[in-house]
Structures are given as C-alpha cells and as structure tokens.
C-alpha cells in the first residue's frame, strides 16, 4: 500500500513537473509590454561527493543537498517567477519551484501582492502582502531566489530559504538620495507575520546546512530518525515530518530593519550597502499544533555589500540569535546560534569566479539529556561560472563542508566522527 502511495505521489509529481515545463516553454513567448511577465529557470546538475554521507533530505545528517548514493545527474530545480500587473501600482507575484531527487516536490515558494504607489513626496513606500522571502539575503537576487554567485547558498541564506518566510505584511519606506540630491539611500522596513512558529527546528535537530532547496507552501521534510524525537522519545508530539510554515499559537511575529546604500552609483548599485534586521517570531515555546512544536526564535542580522568596482564585489553577512522550545531545564531545547560568511566575486566578460568562506555554530544551553544540539562548522566554496548569453549559464562549484556535531551519533548507524565532505557540482542552467 505504502509503495502504491509512493508510486502515486511520484506520478502526480511527474505530471506537475510536465505542466511546469510546458509553462517554462510558454514563458519564452511572453511579451514584455503585456501585464503578464514570466521568467523561468531550469537547472541540470552533475554532482559527486567523497565521504559517503547521507543528505538531510535522505534521512541523513549532512547539511548538503545530495547523498553519496544519489544519482550523479539531477534536475536540481525548475521554476517560474510569475508577475501579473493588476493595476499600474499593484502586482501579483508568485514563484513556482520543482525539485527532483530526494524529497521530490513542486511548490510555491512565494505568492504575494506588491503595492508600489507613485511617490507623492521624498519618501517612497512599498507594501508586500502574502508569502514572500525575508528581505535579508545579499546572495539570492536571481530568478527563483537563486544566487548569481554559486549553486548553493551560504549557511545563513540556506536557513532563510528553508525555515524562514514572511506570511503576512511588510512595509518599506525609502528615502532615495535622488530626491534630495544626496549620494545615499536610506530605507526602513517592518513586518508582521504568522505561520513561522516552527522556525528553529532544523537548527536544533539537524544543524546548519548549505544547499539550494527552498521550502514552499505545504512543504514538509523528513526528520532523521533521532530517538528523542517522535513517539517514545522525550519530544513525542513531533511528527516524523517537519513542516516549516505552521502557526502554533496565533501570536504574530515581527521583524524590522534598515538599509543604507552609500557612495557613487555603479552599474548595478551603490558602492556600499549596509543592513541591520531584528527578527522575533514570538512563538509560544510550549505550544504544539498538528505534530509541530512552537520554537521561539529570535535573531539579529548585519550585512555589507561592497561593490569595489563594477566587476568586483565583497559580501559579508552575520546572523546571531537563539531558539527555545519546551519548558524546564531538562525538558526543553534552549540554544544560541550564529553564522557568518564572507564572499568575494569577480566578473570578467562572461566569466565569474567566487570564493565564499562560512562559519556556523549552535550552542546547546539546556540540560536536557540525550539531546545535544551543539555544532561547530565551517565551509569553503569555490565557484566558477560562464554566461554564454541568451540565458545559458554553466557553473562549477567545489564545496568543502566541515561540521562537528556530537548529536549526529543519535542517528542509528551514523558514525560519531565530524563530517568533512567535499562536493563537486557541475550545472547547466537555462534562464528564460
């Protein structure tokens, strides 16, 4: 029966994927002056890695996307960014994404209304209502929230893609320098949202990760077989599948922040862009709903994007926060976490080379037995890509992922040694 269900699920996924590919084909014919604007991307990858580790998407403990025994050839992702102009100042936008391989899925990662009224004074305001990404990633600026620099995102932005989403409203008030004859732009951003109460689960029970999977509407992921999680364990209310976008307590969360862009105007942005954000999902840490716990997760985020020249960029992002689930020092999870990365990228003609260095940590602060959540890790990513033009791009990524996480030994059969994985990915992308 279970096998039949799985076959059925696979069939449904294949049909959905077929529909998506048909839409991809249509998107190439979209007229730029029409109210409908569709962009798409198809990403085929060849991948290999060296240490036999199992991906978290395959009930393993590795934070990378693929497992050692996965097929080398993967349809890494296919998707569409759809934007429809309802009025001159109101657009409906959505992103549909399909993944094959472990946890095959078709989902909507964003679906929202974007209201951008005509400025009537020096402050420009913008509103987004619906489901959309937090506005913090410096890397994920491409179609489908992809990165122009690399095939996987930094640990920070991987986490923002898999556990974080605004399902609510966000306002942005910008003071553009051009309205004041100034060489800087200042923006303030604030949001109220719900359905992000389980954020923090992955950091505690899996740890940090580095991949390109983005969670969407009704996404759920298998949690590795940890004895403390699920029936018979200390945290027995947790279902075997984790759902990232759940409201457990009907309390809205919030974030606010500011962005400052400074200096001369280069071909794609001002010389330096700085940002600060504070996020608090205000989840009740003792709430449980539908097999998901509430995790009160808070963090601060600082970032800098320095455009050294039109072809050289340096990016840095630091995120630090804490998460709390449960009550009582021996029956809860209380952890601090932080991650940071620095990235340097250079373009020359159709070539781009990128080097990214990541550090990430989780520090377990509770005394709950048999549930260690500590993690210390680092990674280095070396990427090269070639843009043929007309939407074709080939990329080569070498990622070295090192993570020491004692809690991995709870997974039956998992060796206690730290992970030291080298992953090679070769990708061919077609952008529409």
């Amino acid at each position, binding site marked *: 029966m279970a096998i039949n269900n799985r076959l059925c699920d696979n069939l449904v996924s294949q049909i959905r994927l077929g529909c998506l590919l048909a839409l991809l084909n249509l998107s190439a014919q979209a007229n*730029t*002056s029409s109210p409908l604007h569709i962009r798409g991307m198809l990403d085929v990858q060849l991948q290999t890695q060296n240490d036999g580790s199992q991906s978290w998407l395959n009930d393993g403990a590795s934070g990378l996307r693929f497992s050692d025994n996965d097929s080398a050839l993967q349809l890494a992702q296919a998707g569409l960014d759809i934007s429809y*102009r309802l009025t*001159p*100042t109101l657009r409906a936008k959505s992103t549909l994404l399909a993944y094959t391989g472990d946890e095959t899925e078709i989902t909507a990662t964003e679906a929202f209304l974007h209201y*951008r*009224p*005509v*400025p*009537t*004074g020096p402050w420009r305001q913008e509103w987004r209502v619906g489901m959309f990404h937090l506005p913090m990633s410096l890397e994920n*600026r*491409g*179609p489908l929230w*992809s990165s*122009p620099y690399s095939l996987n995102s930094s640990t920070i932005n991987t986490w923002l893609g898999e556990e974080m989403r605004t399902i609510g409203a966000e306002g942005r008030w910008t003071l*553009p320098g*051009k*309205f004041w*004859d100034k060489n800087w732009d200042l923006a303030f951003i604030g949001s109220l949202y719900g359905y992000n109460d389980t954020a923090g689960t992955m950091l505690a029970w899996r740890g940090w990760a580095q991949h390109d999977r983005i969670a969407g509407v009704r996404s759920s992921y298998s949690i590795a077989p940890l004895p403390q999680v699920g029936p018979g364990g200390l945290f027995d209310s947790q279902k075997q599948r984790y759902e990232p976008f759940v409201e457990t307590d009907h309390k809205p969360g919030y974030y606010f922040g500011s962005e400052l*862009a400074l200096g001369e*105007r280069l*071909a*794609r*942005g*001002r010389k330096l*862009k700085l940002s600060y954000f504070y996020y608090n999902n205000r989840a009740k840490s003792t709430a449980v709903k539908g097999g998901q716990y509430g995790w009160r997760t808070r963090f601060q985020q600082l970032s800098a994007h320095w455009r050294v020249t*039109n072809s050289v960029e340096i990016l840095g992002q630091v995120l630090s926060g804490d998460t709390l689930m449960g009550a009582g020092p021996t029956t809860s999870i209380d952890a601090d976490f932080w991650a940071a990365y620095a990235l340097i990228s250079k373009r020359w003609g159709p070539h781009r080379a990128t080097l990214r260095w990541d550090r990430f940590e989780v520090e377990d602060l509770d005394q709950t037995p048999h549930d260690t959540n500590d993690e210390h890790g680092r990674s280095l990513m070396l990427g090269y890509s070639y*843009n043929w033009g007309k*939407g074709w*791009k080939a990329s080569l990524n070498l990622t070295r992922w090192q993570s020491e996480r004692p809690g991995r030994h709870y997974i039956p059969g998992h060796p206690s040694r730290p992970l030291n994985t080298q992953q090679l990915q070769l990708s061919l*992308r077609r*952008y529409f």
Partner: protein
Amino acid sequence: MHINPRFSLALALIAPTVLSAQLNVSLGSNAGQTLPDLTGAVVYLISDDKALTAHMAETKAANASAEMAQHKLQFDPYIRVVQSGTPVSFPNKDDVAHHVYSFSPNHAFELELYKGRDVPEKHFSSPGVVNLGCNIHDWMQGYIYIVDTPWFSQVVNNSGTKDSAAKQNGQIAQIFDVPKGVYTLRFWHPGMDRKEAVNQTIDIQHDVQTVNLALSYTIKNSAQPLPPEEQFDDSSDY
C-alpha cells in the same frame, strides 16, 4: 523641441523691426572648477519690458510643442526647457511600460505610459523645475524646466567634438531672435545647489554678442543615470 516653420517665418518678418540679436553664452567657472558636462543646462533671459515679453511669449507659445520621450529606459532628452503653457508630450519609445511621475511643487502628476495607449499632453503653467521619475524603473531621472520667457536655450557641449573650431567654443548656449536691450541672464542645471542662483545683467547691443557666464560655485556632476547593466541571472539594486 519642434519649431513650427510658420513660426520661423513670422520671426523672420518681425526680426528687422525689433532689431533682434543672437546671444552666445559661454560657460566657465569662477570657482576654479573644471566644469562637468553641462549638456542640456538651461540658459534664459528675463526682460523688464513686460509688454514685449508677453507679446513675444504669446506668439512663440502658440506655435510651440515639446517632447519628453522614454527611450532605451531613459528620459530623452535628460533636460528639456519649455516656455510655460507649452504642451509637452511623453511618447514611450520602449517595448516596456513606463509610469512617469513628478511630485515637484505645482507640477505633481502621473502618467501611465503603456504601449498603444493615447496619453494627453501636459501643460505646465508655473515656472520652475519638474523633476521626473518612473515608478517602474527607479533609475530613470529627467527634468523639464519651465520658464516664463520666450528667450531660452540649452547648453551644447562641444568639448568632445573633433571639429577644432567648434571645440574651442567649449560649453555654449545660443539664444536667437532676442530684441536688443537689457536683460537678466539666468542659468539652471540639476547639479547646482537649489539655493544658488545666477542673475547676471547683460546689455545686448550687437547683432551677435557673446557673454561669458562664470559660475561662482562648484557644480556637481549630475549626468543622466544609465540603466543598470542587464544580467539574466541577477537583479540590480535599482
């Protein structure tokens, strides 16, 4: 700006009777600055003779029209000077939609400029700057400068030309068909501070007269912003 041929003919007939002249305004700096490219900067004359101004302005306005196009994701031209009341059209020469706006005092408006849609011309009645933007393409910046006089022109930059004679002229504006007499010469460019004004008195007595307008302050390089470089795998900050 398009000048109606009938208007040129009318001017030719009037010219001898009012002893009209040509004024060349050559730009320089008193602030020790090598001037940035001031192409499009506005130079105009104000006369104390209200009756003459009104007569000439009426004649000229009746035949004038102006265009502020959107072309290759920029305003074209960057700066346009018009006499108050002149109808200004905003043709969209791109394949994409534009949504042009201004919130400048006395000149607030917005125009949805989609392909194939008829958009009425705008009439700007009060003198001053109309600071233009596009709500879809944030980098787009342009200016319409409204003057209350029929005698105006815009600066041409000859410094990049290969013609050595023209090159010597540097940055120059030429105003034609000006009746001889005393005027106040004024100047405007987006790179000047809003508080800085030029009011230079000149007495036009010759058929062709050249004056040097030496700017006494530093002027910022306010060249027209270029559209961001297109990349299919990345979006820009603009």
